[in-house]
């Protein structure tokens, strides 16, 4: 395998840039994952505590408004609530820009790509107004710090995050024979019980994969084992023994007894799931699809799975396996960049000054990025379901999705930068040695600089990686 710096930046990073030098080799890319995370100090984003603080303020404002209903203070309280809502929307726009700027300015694009990959693998989102914009802080707390450790630690961090418990209804799941279930039955005459949603998705999406040898009985047992994991907006995650189903559960032949060891039993089950051979296959395939092609080379998938099993899911070792395999370095660009990565790479290729982005207010962020992304098929922080965004190229390059990409390329760079780079320079910056004679012709044949630069960014060679 011959290392190709440009290809490394395009396929495993955030795209070429005239400002940042591409990586010199796999060692540098992997070492950067162990080094301090500079992007988070350059562009800080609050962790999930920040989202919980927003949620508390929102709930308090809502309670105050409810208490004021039909009274003289109602209009004032209603204004307070609206202000809090607006503040949270401002946060969302600001955090979006910071995530974008990390991709635009980083010298370690692989870290951004892995963060996006695992954030998608562990998709979680807010289903109520108080947590509506919790996804970015969740990624900051649960995903990003854990992308270069063992998969089991990443799994535990994601699955026990308040946002995941909320998104997949775990915080409502009660052991049918638990103390809480008995109390609710006695006092309120209601039956409360299990919700299998999180347990099912942990097996199907996060670990073993849908085709793996597990059954409904395992889903049920894992759901019973998960009972007791709840959250509230005051304390975040909590393990509440009163909610937990008494006795031990048997999952894939292993026995776990949370009644004796509490949360430790749940974590042990997650570690065992992480180390299951089927999990190695499932994650290997997902990584190969995401980084190389919708139809990845089977030897690459096998190589990744073997490395995962040999190292008990040491992710750095798995990434090393990815970067050393010849199939990762096929010349032809295959995967279509999803909208967020595409727009980030366009800003990066144009060397957009950070100030051009940081000066945008919320309505502008919506107009320039979030609404176009939604029209391109990627609603920021709200994938269609817990399985996250699609990987298939055809899901992104639909007539409507492509039309929106063209529209963005033709109008937004000029709006943001005023002065665009000269077309032939932009072409060189964006595609390096992949700037073909045909693209040089396009860059010079367009009637305006704006269209020339737009067309370069719309080139299939720039939309794939």
């Amino acid at each position, binding site marked *: 395998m011959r290392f190709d710096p440009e290809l490394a930046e395009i396929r495993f990073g955030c795209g070429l840039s005239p400002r940042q030098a591409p990586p010199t080799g796999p060692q540098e890319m992997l070492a950067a994952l162990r080094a301090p995370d500079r992007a988070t100090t350059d562009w800080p984003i609050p962790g999930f505590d920040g989202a919980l603080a927003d949620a508390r303020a929102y709930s308090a404002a809502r309670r105050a408004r409810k208490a004021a*209903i*039909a009274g003289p203070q*109602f209009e004032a309280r*209603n204004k307070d609530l609206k202000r809090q809502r607006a503040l949270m929307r401002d946060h969302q726009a600001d955090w979006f820009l910071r995530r974008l700027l990390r991709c635009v300015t980083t010298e370690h694009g692989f870290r951004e790509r892995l963060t996006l990959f695992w954030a998608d693998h562990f998709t979680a989102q807010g*289903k*109520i107004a108080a947590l509506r914009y919790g996804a970015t802080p969740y990624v900051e707390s649960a995903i990003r710090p854990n992308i270069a450790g063992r998969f089991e630690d990443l799994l535990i961090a994601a699955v026990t995050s308040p946002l995941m418990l909320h998104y997949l209804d775990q915080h409502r799941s009660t052991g049918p024979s638990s103390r809480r279930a008995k109390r609710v039955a006695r006092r309120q005459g209601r039956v409360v019980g299990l919700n299998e*949603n999180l347990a*099912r*998705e942990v097996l199907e999406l996060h670990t073993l994969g849908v085709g793996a040898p597990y059954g409904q009985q395992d889903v049920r047992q894992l759901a019973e084992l998960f009972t007791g994991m709840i959250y509230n907006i005051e304390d975040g995650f909590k393990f509440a023994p009163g909610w937990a189903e008494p006795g031990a559960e048997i999952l894939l032949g292993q026995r776990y007894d949370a009644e004796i060891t509490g949360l430790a039993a749940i974590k042990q089950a997650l570690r065992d799931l992480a180390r299951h051979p089927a999990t190695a296959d499932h994650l290997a395939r997902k990584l190969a699809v995401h980084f190389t092609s919708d139809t990845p080379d089977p030897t690459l998938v096998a190589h990744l799975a073997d490395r995962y099993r040999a190292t008990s899911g040491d992710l750095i070792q798995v990434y090393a396996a990815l970067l050393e395999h010849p199939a990762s370095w096929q010349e032809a660009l295959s995967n*279509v960049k999803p909208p967020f990565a595409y727009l980030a790479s366009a800003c990066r290729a144009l060397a957009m000054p950070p100030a051009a982005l940081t000066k945008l207010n919320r309505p502008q962020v919506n107009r320039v990025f979030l*609404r176009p992304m*939604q*029209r391109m098929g990627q*609603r920021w922080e709200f994938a*269609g*379901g*817990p*399985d996250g965004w699609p990987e298939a*190229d*055809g899901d992104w*390059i*639909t*007539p*409507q*999705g*492509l*039309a*929106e990409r*063209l*529209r963005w390329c*033709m*109008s937004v760079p000029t709006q943001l930068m005023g002065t665009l780079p000269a077309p032939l320079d932009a072409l060189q910056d964006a595609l390096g040695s992949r700037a073909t004679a*045909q*693209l040089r012709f*396009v860059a*010079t*044949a*367009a*009637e305006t600089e704006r*269209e020339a630069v*737009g*067309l370069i960014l*719309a*080139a*299939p060679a720039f*939309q794939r990686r």
Partner: protein
Amino acid sequence: MTNILPSPSASLSRRSFLARSGLIGCSLAASPLLTPVSFAAAPWDTRLVVIILRGGMDAVDVVQPYGDPAYAGLRQTLRGGPQNGAQDLDGFFALHPALAPLMPLWRAEQLGFVHAVSTPYRNKRSHFDGQDLLEAGTPGLHQRRDGWLNRLLQVTPGVEARTAFAIGQGEMKLLQGPAPVSDWSPDAEIALSPQAERLAGLMMEGDPLFHAALAEALDLADSARADAATGRAGTTGQRRAPPHQRIASYAAQQLRGDSRIAAFSINGWDTHNRQKGALTRALRRLSDTILTLHGDLGSTIWDKTAVVAMTEFGRTVRENGTGGTDHGTGGAMLLAGGAIRGGKVHGQWPGLTEAELFDRRDLMPTGDVRAQMGWIMHGLIGTGQQAIGDVIFPGVEMGADQGLLRR
């Protein structure tokens, strides 16, 4: 900069230009997306339009049960009935004043309602989950990742990409899944000069996925533009029609061609505060949408059309403290078109006394939205009951034929 490419004469249609420039024509067979009108035979002849009303439409305020003795005591600022400006429908129900423009359709028996229906969703009252379930069409949440309208396409032979259209910018989960579907938003104009368009075509020629998507996008944008030019897009004078009307126009235009199904959303039904104004605005959008479909489809196609509007859940029967209503359970469907049996409020009315309510707060659902939709598919498209109960709406209790369609 000199333009080195010949520019097409203005009289050439884009299609013929595309054909000449190789964007379509020889690659037609190879293009999975391109099914020009003249090449495709639609698999059936009737038309179905599904409108998702997102936010939870207040059925009790739209189709007002003023004849129910318990109705008057439930609402203070949201008083309905003919004495408050509503249109009497049948001596028991009255129609919200904002839907008055639809009364001619009601009298022509081309507008109807199904009252007190819901999905199987109960007790949680979350928009997010409620809409997921409405679009998945399953008994419970998280049982399928595809949508019921896509599954209808999966069990119907002869479906092409253009058979069904998801229109507008919001996600339409009910059409997502393995069967081919087109998506387009009338706002998604391709703002390219003729020269840029040619250069884009040149650049994408070597990449079949991009090439096909570009050709299809240009074609779709073209027809949307042609529509605007002929004044069909609900344009009044020089003013551009509002988005919901453009979507309805675009849907009608596709349905006049080879498309048979169109789906889109109308938002704005979550009326917690000051419902009077908010619901009026949302209903005007709905009314405009239906009148635009009616006008743009033309009577021949309108006669074979069923428009079905549905919502994730209804709202509380009692007004809350801020002149609005909160998330409830039982709701209503709106039916329009020449194919439906209108002039009637279908369904079984549960009553409004405390004991008759769901959870002592919501309209009690007496019917399943999926069963109503199943009968409509069965009568309109000929979908077999087994396919409906096994695949499209797994486990649905179809019950007896509701007679929602004109026979």
